[in-house]
């Protein structure tokens, strides 16, 4: 019988721990498929964050590091700088990890133009700790630490990482995608693939932001969560390419 679909070799057989309707699983799959398609599973080292995807080191079949909260770009820098040429290094980070506690590390890694790929999952909330306000939480969005809704006066406007990093010369590719439906999923896959391809050419830091749903902490069933993402997140975090200063050869 012909096999029409199978799990990517970029993933282990470990059962994912994610909640129903969470988008981490989809993004893991896209990253794993990309590593497999590019034939680089055996020469890739990934860095997992602290947050919901903290166990990502168990899910990807390449060599992995678990990093302290926010430090993944620094850990990835250490790995990349000492590994043989041709080694691919990526971080997989959420919005609390990358856009709050790890802001210095991601900005400086981008400034240096570290030859790493950063997969950034933005679900506008802290998932692992149970739904607290993130720097990406939208104005008016209720969380367990903004119970009346985030206000600009108190917490400022949500941070836009693609826009911020695209101002840095060392960040050669920044694209914001989502995985709410098949056309967008295909775009996300393309973006992830391009990010890894550009790394293989030593172009600089490549950054893919994925708008993601968190039904559990948003307090919505999965389908409603996707609708909320489309209606509320995409207008504030427009999809698209923010930086594309290197050509795929």
């Amino acid at each position: 019988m012909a096999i029409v679909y199978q799990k990517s070799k970029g993933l282990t057989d470990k059962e994912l721990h994610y909640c129903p309707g969470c988008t981490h699983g989809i993004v893991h799959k896209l990253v794993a498929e990309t590593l497999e398609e590019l034939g680089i599973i055996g020469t890739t080292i990934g860095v997992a964050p602290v947050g919901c995807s903290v166990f990502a080191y168990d899910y990807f079949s390449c060599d992995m590091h678990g990093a302290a909260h926010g430090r993944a770009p620094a850990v990835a820098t250490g790995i990349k700088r000492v590994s043989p040429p041709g080694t691919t290094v990526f971080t997989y980070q959420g919005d609390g990890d990358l856009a709050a506690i790890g802001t210095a590390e991601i900005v400086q890694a981008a400034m240096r133009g570290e030859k790493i790929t950063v997969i950034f999952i933005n679900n506008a909330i802290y998932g692992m700790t149970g739904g607290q306000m993130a720097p990406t939480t939208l104005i008016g969005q209720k969380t367990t630490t903004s119970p009346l809704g985030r206000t600009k006066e108190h917490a400022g406007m949500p941070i836009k990482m693609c826009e911020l990093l695209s101002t840095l010369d060392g960040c050669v590719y920044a694209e914001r995608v989502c995985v709410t439906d098949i056309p967008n999923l295909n775009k996300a896959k393309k973006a992830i693939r391009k990010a890894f391809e550009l790394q293989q050419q030593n172009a600089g830091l490549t950054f893919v932001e994925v708008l993601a749903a968190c039904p559990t902490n948003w307090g919505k069933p999965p389908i409603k969560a996707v609708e909320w993402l489309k209606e509320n997140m995409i207008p504030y975090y427009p999809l698209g390419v923010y930086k594309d200063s290197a050509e795929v050869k």
Partner: protein
Amino acid sequence: MEKELWKGNEAIAEAAIRAGCKYFFGYPITPQTEVPEYLSLHLPEIGGCFLQAESEVAAINMVYGAGGCGVRVMTSSSSPGISLKQEGITYLCGSEVPCVIINVMRGGPGLGTIQPAQGDYYQATRGGGNGDYRTPVLAPANVQEAADFVRMAFDIADIYRNPVMVLADGMIGQMMEAVEWHDIEKRELPAKPWATTGTQGKREHNVINSLYIQPEPCAEHNEKLEKKYKLIEEKETRYEEIDAEGCEVLFTAYGTTSRVCRAAMKLLADEGIKAGLFRPITVWPFPYAQLKKAAAQNSVKAVVVAELSLGQMIDDVKIALEGSKPISFIGKAGGLVPTPREVADAAKKAIGR
């Protein structure tokens, strides 16, 4: 062998290169900055990498990434910077990633001063990060030892898969002394099959990690680490005794302060008082049994602890002696160094002379 004049910090940096360390991640802070400065010039010459990080926090995490790949890697800093590295140090210990960390101590607390001090003893020996972990700590008393201990530290780190700290102070970092680049003891080093070098499609993936979310595996991991720390205590405890046999006063001091004690011993000898020195070389593991034995001599009337702090190592001396001998203390914090006369007078007072 030819002797060369080396500044402490530069000798530390050169020693790392001679130990086969090709990678350094650090951040400028006085009084250790000559270490990164030296390596920024010389590591690229040997095909290595020097990288000035955005912070000590980032630097130690770069070390974690690099060390996890199996290479010899070092970072250096001074007291406030070492405070920032504590998060990384506990992760390095938890993940069993070998590396060498240099602390050229200065005065504290907080920003303190840039002058020499030994106020980071608790932090170095008890751990400033979270959880049950230990790092072997070698404390050089001169530039020669700084050069030797850095090389030894890389071996200890690799043998036990653990970070190792070299605890110097601003005096040793900044002064120039003669150094002989003699061979150090050749030790058998284990392979690093755990390193993240890419699976190359030939093995299961390696994971460098300190997370054990279930309590039983986490407890098991802690017990495994504890066994390792016990082994380090057994095998790596180092100390030196100088004129300790038959002494009336037994000084206990490490690093720069041990040299002040040696000068004080001469002053005391002129006054007919026989003083000796017990110098811990590893402050963790601390030579408890050896100190107790040295102090147990009938001749010893008092143990005098000298530190560039207001009393931190003295706790270990108390643990070692278990009340068996009177202990007194002379110390200064905040960048001042007691004179040999002050130390000698403290010793005289301790024995009622």
